[in-house]
């Protein structure tokens, strides 16, 4: 360690001598722009924060005195609660704002609402919005850190980071792992963020679903597209089943839920084709009996609840890293 000249930060350079300046972002808008080194740095940081949950006192003072606003223009419970608990564990103060009780319903623009949040000295804004690019829009205009908690069908970076973290934790690596993502890829920000993260870290990705929801246009990203789940299952190390989003879907994409399950649901019979140690993942909330058989969701292979636990650690890491950069400006 170099003991720096300024007494206020004598240990600032402790571990950065070997790995300088890996994380320099005040915002997390998406994974498309991140390097593999940045993604790995978030995952490494998250594994340190995961241990906090096992302590006698599950709280650290890293973000003491900072205010986080959960600004959810689109409904969400688990992501919001996960961010809220992550912020509490870092000793930040949390305000929750939902679209229904914000002034957005009175005609205030996103930018004006955000400016008001900033005027209240919000340090971190976690934004969920139905329009792609909303988080980017705010990040460019606000001094506060902006964390994207899902913007339209664009990105949901913390979900993909927690998925990647879970794979790395369970299988020991990402490089060379074959991940099969099943379902509604077209409307899925989770799929897009996962594709970016997994490809950057050297995984192979195959997308499976009805041709209306998994168009070949994804192939230039570097993924394989197929409509035959049975054929691809024996080669999968990880199956990530996306939720069929009734609320987002219009009827014409597939005829019925029953038919979807018949071709793309992970039934018990179909799961027998999987390798014995393959992981079953789902971002939740699950539609039991649609994307996945109810018993399979509760089986040993399912890491769905690990994903939830890991989501907390990943979000603590993201808040810590982004707030640390913003504070320095």
């Amino acid at each position: 360690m170099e003991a720096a000249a300024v007494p206020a930060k004598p240990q600032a350079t402790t571990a950065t001598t070997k790995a300088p300046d890996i994380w320099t972002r005040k915002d997390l808008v998406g994974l498309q722009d991140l390097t593999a080194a940045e993604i790995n740095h978030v995952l490494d940081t998250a594994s340190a924060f995961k241990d906090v949950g096992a302590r006698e006192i599950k709280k650290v003072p890293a973000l003491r005195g900072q205010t986080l606003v959960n600004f959810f223009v689109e409904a969400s419970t688990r992501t919001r609660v996960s961010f809220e608990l992550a912020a509490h564990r870092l000793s930040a103060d949390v305000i929750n704002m939902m679209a229904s009780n914000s002034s957005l319903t009175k005609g205030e623009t996103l930018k004006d609402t955000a400016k008001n949040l900033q005027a209240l000295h919000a340090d971190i804004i976690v934004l969920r919005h139905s329009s792609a690019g909303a988080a980017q829009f705010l990040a460019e205009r606000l001094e506060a850190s902006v964390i994207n908690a899902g913007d339209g069908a664009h990105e949901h970076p913390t979900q993909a980071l927690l998925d990647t973290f879970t794979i790395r934790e369970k299988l020991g690596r990402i490089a060379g792992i074959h991940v099969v993502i099943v379902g509604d890829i077209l409307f899925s920000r989770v799929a897009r963020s996962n594709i970016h993260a997994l490809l950057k870290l050297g995984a192979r990705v195959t997308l499976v679903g009805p041709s209306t929801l998994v168009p070949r246009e994804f192939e230039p990203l570097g993924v394989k597209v197929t409509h035959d789940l049975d054929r691809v299952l024996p080669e999968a190390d990880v199956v990530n089943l996306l939720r069929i989003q009734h609320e987002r879907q219009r009827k014409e994409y597939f005829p019925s839920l029953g038919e979807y399950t018949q071709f793309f649901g992970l039934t018990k019979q179909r799961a027998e084709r999987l390798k014995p140690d393959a992981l079953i993942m789902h971002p939740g909330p699950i539609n039991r009996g649609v994307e996945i058989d109810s018993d399979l969701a509760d089986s040993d292979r399912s890491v769905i609840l690990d994903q939830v636990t890991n989501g907390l650690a990943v979000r603590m890491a993201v808040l810590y890293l982004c707030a640390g950069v913003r504070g320095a400006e």
Partner: protein
Amino acid sequence: MNPAPTPPIPGAALVLDRAAIERCLKRITHEIIERNPDLSKVALIGIPSRGIEIARRLAGYLKEFSGTEPFTGVVDVAMHRDDLHRHRLPPRVERTILPHDLEDVTIVLTDDVLFSGRTCRAAMDSISSFGRPARIQYAVLVDRGHRELPIRADYVGKNLPTALGQRVHVRFEATDGIEDSVWMSQT
């Protein structure tokens, strides 16, 4: 005697060479043995990054001199600092590795340089969130003065009087790929 190693920063003066560092760490080990009659209850816990290497080295000497192999671990301080906003970039967080049960354990915190004392305070805060060790002792390779908190080290390799603006650089073969050495530079 080997030729003098190359300074990590031009103009830096050599304070301790490899042999001197080894003498310091061996002496600290003997002092730890003197102060702690029951070595089986001692855990050496390093403060990242080079405190970890010091804990590892002390553990090796302790085994050599006493036959007891102590628990060695790590305590993260990054998430327990109260000055995140003062850093240019967020300090790297590390996984904390402590004995499962801290009851009756004497923790010897190890670090390379003792300066303001704020790192030590953060380390003690961090440990207290895991449990209540019997006592915490503090071993440092270099004490350069300028404390901002009422903290002192139990074991000191070298007391090094410095001016506030000077810098102390510790290098280890194992962590930096540079021969073990301690340097002081004017800026």
